[in-house]
């Protein structure tokens, strides 16, 4: 089993590496010190299992999983926080270990990983959609959106997003004049965002209400929303009603 260790603390990585060195059927594929390295290494190196920290700078462990999507290997989360366990198992994590990691618990988790690799869980096909949902911290709205752009990863703070447009089977996220494509449905993203901030003004548009400059009637039962940068978006009748309940 080839294992990739991901943790922003050098000592935490060294500890896991030391424990894994004693296990015969395990090779350490690599060690990543942050989420960006983790995404890159997980794609470039052959690896079967991630030992993944949750709280890391810029990209959390869950965001790493979201970016890897269907190409993600099996994952064991390793963290000092116990509050992410439910989310972890929602995305079919093999196990969830608490720091300081008990060697025996690590061995049990590795055994579960072996079993999972021999007999892949058919449910994991559905994982990618759920991963995105689980990336949101418990009880909070999404604070940033992570986007793959070839080999690069963009992290957009949610307040920089102007609007989101649905196109075919992906989303276009407009932020500060740039447009990013992301593999997700508009309904999935909408469910994670603060409804007081982002309003579905149209079947294919989700708008940051702070960007609204003015609204003009366009035709019967349809409007145009002008944004502060001068561009405009169409708004449907039901979108108009949703916007009014938020703004009132």
């Amino acid at each position: 089993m080839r294992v990739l260790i991901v943790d922003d603390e050098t000592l935490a990585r060294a500890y896991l590496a030391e424990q894994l060195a004693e296990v015969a059927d395990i090779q350490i594929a690599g060690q990543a010190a942050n989420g960006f390295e983790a995404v890159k290494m997980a794609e470039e190196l052959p690896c079967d299992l991630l030992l993944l920290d949750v709280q890391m700078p810029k990209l959390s462990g869950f965001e790493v999983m979201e970016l890897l999507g269907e190409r993600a290997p099996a994952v064991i989360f390793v963290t000092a926080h116990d509050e992410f366990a439910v989310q972890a198992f929602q995305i079919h994590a093999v196990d969830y270990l608490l720091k300081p990691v008990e060697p025996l618990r690590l061995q049990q988790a590795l055994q579960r990983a072996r079993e999972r690799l021999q007999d892949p869980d058919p449910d994991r096909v559905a994982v990618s959609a759920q991963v995105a949902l689980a990336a949101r911290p418990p009880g909070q709205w999404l604070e940033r959106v992570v986007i793959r752009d070839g080999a690069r990863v963009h992290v957009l703070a949610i307040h920089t997003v102007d609007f989101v447009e649905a196109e075919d089977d992906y989303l276009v996220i407009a932020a500060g004049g740039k447009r990013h494509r992301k593999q997700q449905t508009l309904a999935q993203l909408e469910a994670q965002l603060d409804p007081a901030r982002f309003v579905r003004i149209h079947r294919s548009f989700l708008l940051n209400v702070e960007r609204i400059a003015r609204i003009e009637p366009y035709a019967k039962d349809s409007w145009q929303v002008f944004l502060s940068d001068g561009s405009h978006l169409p708004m449907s009748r039901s979108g108009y009603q949703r916007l009014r309940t938020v703004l009132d």
Partner: protein
Amino acid sequence: MHPILSNRGRLLGYLLLWVTFGALIAGVIAVTGEATLRWAEIFAIPLAVVMGLQCLPCWYLVRGLAPADVPTWRLMGTWLGTGLVLLTLWLAVATLWLRVLKYANLNPNVDPGTLIPLLVFAGSVGVLIAILGLYSAAASERSRDAERRSLQLRTLAREAEMSFLRRQLDPHFLFNSLNSVAALIGSDAVAARRMCLLMADFFRKSLKFGAQQTIALADELTLIDTFLAIEEVRFGNRLRRGLDVSEEALTMLVPALLLQPLVENAVHHGIAHLLSGGEIKVSAKVRGSLLDIVVQNSCDPDRPISRSTGLGLANVRGRVESMYGTRARMDVENEPETFKVLLALPATPVEAPSARSDR
């Protein structure tokens, strides 16, 4: 709550006392030879019970007229008036009762003229005793209240202390540090031992300083130094620290463990979110009658606006306000790449050098 009316047993005891008092009056009447003992008992005991009932409402006056809170002239005036009213009423009842007994042919030719002085004397004594008794009941109730309140206060203070310590010690800090120790034991036993000692030092200082209201800034800084030394083991060269504190500022008093949570915030909300880390800097100097303290850290310019450093900061602000009121201020500067907390506290020097003699 009325101490006598609220309890049936107590009311019975109270009335029995008055029956005894009535029997005493009856005895005196019989001794003077005005009437037989039997008649005197029939006459005096019901009257004594009436006196007891008359005095019950005095409780509300007693509670309203605590001797410590009310001027003496008002106290005396009120009670003299009340006593006179009670006595007059009672004498009227006594006269009426005498008539009733006379019509019932139980009159052994008693001369009201000789009975009245005796009744006035007995009535005055009865009213006086009743008022003094009620005052002593009120006093014991107040002391019970005071005892309960002081117990409550002590419990509250203890709880505040405990929750303060709990807030101080973030469990994740402990778990992450222990994980570092577990890692070091395999690779560098000397460093592992040093880490254990740092942690012991940090917890001991937290407990010691947490029990004090104010400590010298120098003491608070040694605690912060230990804390950052522990976090340095975790974060390695991602954590850089700076210190710029004047000699004079070191000897000033600050609320114990006020800065430590700010530095902890700086690590968890600042440094921990930066790929290549950043600096935490504490500076302090005395400016006139104020002690200026600044805790600043590098932070991620792309951080979400709503990142919740709120709670820790609110606690610090609450403590500063409750200790100094408007004599101190706290400002927060939230710039893209720097987060700064600025405190201006009244500059109070540590008085006796013995306050820091244990260092």
